[in-house]
């Protein structure tokens, strides 16, 4: 892109909340069911049906706002956004217009090697519409399962100066939504959707020029590509002396092209007015505070701690502080006392391997933190070596006895006993007279050979430190 121009972009994110039921009725909020099976008179807009707000919707929205540091309004209200479309069964969408759920908040991103804060203007609650599909035979069909699924629309300030920044913001926000468990962030399925408002201006200028809106950006990559392409298009228009008109464009991910959707004349007239079927949403300070107290420590803070206090490397930091359950599992394994680097090694190594092998998510991993912790402690104490511990761990997946019982059943009788080990050493030394002789004559590195032999004879279950000490004593003995 030409260096004389600068992008000014803002994003509107729609996040589907992960409530059990829809926002205003008791239908399940699920993706992927057969069309029109998760519907009722309320979400189908049958005559006489009325919406009733689901508390969990409010609760999840509150967590979202707290996570981005916004201010939850103790009073907000619902409005109707009126427009006709076949997938909008009531002919209006329940949304929030001039008294939104929250204002303010920000997200820290890093792009182009620099840290930056993207300000959030507001977040409001609304309901999703159904899904229209146009068939090859010219017919249009509608799936209403999505109608009434709770959405939070998060509107950013026009703080983006590059497509990369927009991508970084989406990445951070998506991660955050997933981390606090309010949205699965699946852009392909549409549980997270992004519209971008884009304008350009000569670098150094501070005025805002006409913007265009882009809809249907269904991946982070497409958000970046669309912003890039639209900026180029606008620059080309300005440079050839033209004028950019306000319009809505649609990103076609088949052809990687922007196509105009409709010309906006001024702005669409949605005839917003207060939703008379719902009472205003009044929240107690106590509800907000309780929600705040129940918030988990967020990824950015965990990362800082893992890096600075635990001394984990970047890869481990990212790995262990991105997915909530994994991160919580890690912390419960640490239990405030175990070595963070060693525990991280276990999770990144053996646990990952097992998860992959069995196709499990972390929450399906059957070895709880207490038992796994005991296993790690055995290794640290030296009573089990790492390889044996791996075998024990594998056994623990389907066997809920304690570590010692499994270890001894596997034949990893913990050879802590000096006499027992001393006997094995004695046998090995006696049965290798040549090597013993050469050792005595000065080939001290033969101790490695003896170590190996004893370990083999002990079935790999000797405490290496103890073994080395006893072996040295035996070999040096007159």
């Amino acid at each position: 892109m030409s260096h004389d121009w600068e992008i000014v972009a803002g994003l509107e994110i729609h996040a589907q909340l992960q409530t059990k039921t829809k926002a205003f009725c008791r239908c399940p909020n699920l993706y992927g069911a057969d069309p029109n099976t998760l519907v009722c008179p309320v979400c189908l807009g049958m005559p006489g049906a009325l919406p009733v707000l689901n508390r969990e919707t409010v609760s999840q929205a509150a967590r979202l706002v707290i996570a981005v540091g916004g201010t939850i309004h103790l009073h907000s209200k619902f409005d109707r956004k009126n427009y006709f479309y076949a997938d909008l069964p009531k002919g209006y969408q329940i949304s929030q217009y001039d008294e939104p759920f929250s204002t303010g908040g920000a997200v820290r991103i890093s792009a182009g090697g620099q840290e930056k804060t993207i300000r959030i203007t507001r977040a409001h609650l609304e309901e999703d519409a159904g899904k229209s599909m146009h068939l090859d035979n010219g017919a249009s069909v509608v799936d209403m399962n999505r109608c009434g699924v709770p959405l939070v629309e998060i509107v950013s300030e026009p703080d983006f100066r590059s497509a990369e920044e927009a991508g970084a913001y989406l990445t951070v926000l998506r991660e955050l939504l997933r981390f606090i468990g309010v949205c699965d962030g699946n852009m392909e399925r549409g549980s997270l959707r992004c519209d971008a408002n884009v304008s350009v201006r000569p670098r150094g200028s501070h005025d805002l020029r006409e913007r265009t809106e882009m809809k249907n950006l269904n991946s982070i990559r497409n958000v970046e590509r669309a912003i890039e392409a639209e900026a180029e298009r606008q620059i080309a228009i300005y440079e050839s002396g033209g004028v950019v008109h306000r319009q809505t464009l649609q990103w076609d991910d088949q052809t990687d092209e922007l196509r105009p959707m409709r010309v906006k004349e001024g702005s669409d007239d949605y005839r917003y007015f207060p939703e008379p079927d719902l009472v205003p949403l009044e929240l107690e300070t106590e509800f907000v505070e309780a929600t705040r107290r129940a918030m988990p420590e967020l990824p950015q803070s965990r990362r800082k701690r893992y890096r600075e206090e635990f001394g984990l490397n970047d890869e481990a930091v990212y790995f262990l502080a991105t997915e909530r359950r994994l991160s919580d599992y890690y912390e419960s394994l640490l239990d405030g006392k175990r070595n963070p680097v060693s525990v991280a090694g276990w999770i990144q190594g053996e646990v990952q391997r097992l998860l992959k092998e069995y196709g499990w998510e972390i929450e399906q991993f059957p070895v709880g933190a207490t038992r796994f912790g005991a296993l790690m402690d055995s290794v640290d104490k030296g009573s089990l070596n790492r390889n044996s511990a791996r075998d024990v761990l594998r056994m623990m997946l389907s066997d809920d006895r304690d570590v010692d019982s499994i270890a001894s059943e596997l034949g990893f009788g913990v050879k802590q006993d000096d006499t027992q080990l001393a006997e094995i050493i004695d046998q090995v030394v006696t049965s290798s007279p040549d090597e013993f002789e050469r050792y005595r004559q000065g080939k001290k590195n033969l101790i490695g050979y003896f170590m190996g032999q004893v370990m083999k004879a002990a079935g790999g279950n000797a405490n290496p430190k103890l073994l080395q000490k006893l072996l040295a004593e035996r070999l040096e003995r007159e």
Partner: protein
Amino acid sequence: MPLLIPSPETLRRNPEKLPEAVAQSLALARANRHLGAFIELLDERAGVSCGEVMARIRKGEELPLAGFIIAVKDNISIKDVPLTCGSRILDHHPATFTATAVERLERAGAIVIGKTNLDEFAMGSSNENSSFGPARHPLDDTRVPGGSSGGSAVSVAAGWCHAALGSDTGGSVRQPAAFCGIVGLKPTYGRVSRYGLVAFGSSLDQISPFAHDCTSAFEVLHAMAGADSHDATSAHVKVPECEVLSLPKNKLRVGVVREFVDHEALAPSIRAASREVCDALTSAGHTLVEVSLPTAKLAIPVYYIVATAEASSNLARFDGARYGKRSADATDVNSVLELSRGIGFGPEVRRRIMMGTYVLSAGYFDAYYRTAQKVRRLIKEELQAVLAQTDVLLTPTTPSTAFRIGEKVDDPVAMYLSDIFTTPANLAGLPAVSIPWRSDESGLPIGMQLMANYFDEELLLSAGMELERLRPGV
């Protein structure tokens, strides 16, 4: 007009007579089909409910509405029963669920015999805007019974039913009650769940009973009132414990609204009747207090802005896409919507949708909708202030008695003025009742309206009972 079927008390004492009474009620409605009261009679369903009610009575269940034979306005849903709202756009649409109010009445033992005629989507004051033809006044079939709940009013006034449900958005129950000489009670907004009532003006609508007297209106209200988890605007206010209405325990302070009793549009007979009521109340030892509601004269324009704005949005769902009438000429998604709505809605509904769309449009919103909401608040405050000094307010229910069919159809504004005394209660959300007083020189009933404070239907109706006691010739 006398009740032509046995009274609820009789039927309660002799439940074996219920099937015959239900059959009688249905037969009367059928024999008087020319009055256009019913859109659909539910013989089979009524028979089934009748059997259930008798079985429950035999089991010794206490059913507060046992013996009540009722009719339901056809903008209130009953599962699997066609729901027309008096409109072509809801052709062949069986309702998918039952309204909470109906469910509660049936649980209390009431038997529904049919769905009654109405102005299309409850928009009208004469029942002439129905795609099923007008309902007619039971005393003079050249006259309107009032609207929009005309059919329900006729079913009770003609003596075929003990009570009926209507919906009152700006007077749609009180005005036909006054025209037909029966009691029409609009409860406090939120008192009765709106779940299952097809919305016209959601912030004004309230399911409302017609009955022969205040006592039975109270019984019906009692059975259907109370919070409903399906309606966020239903009030969590305790329903009065008392199930039987009695006369006022104390002498009443009755506020007489100066602007209304002297209103220039008032017919002389109604003006005279208002004076009689005042005299009767004074003679009975009640205190009259003259009160003023200067802003109330704006109630009609405010009402027609708020109600049409909400209606324009509420009626957007009737688009032919999922249910109801779909134009055969439609070729794509947009034409399904446009053409179906064009052929489905009648002229008054189209007019109100256009008015409502206009007042919500960008550039007009502040001048109309926002201003109307401000004035609405003033009207409400004014009424609250006046009710703080009085027990009830007294006004005529309507400026005239029942007018002739066709008399006002070409003058919508004249028609809208029928609601002049009734709309303030809807705008403020207050309970109000129309009580028949006497008939005018042509034998047409005159109704008087009482308003009371929020959720005080008990006081409202006991004051109504006092009017019934003082009624001339009783």
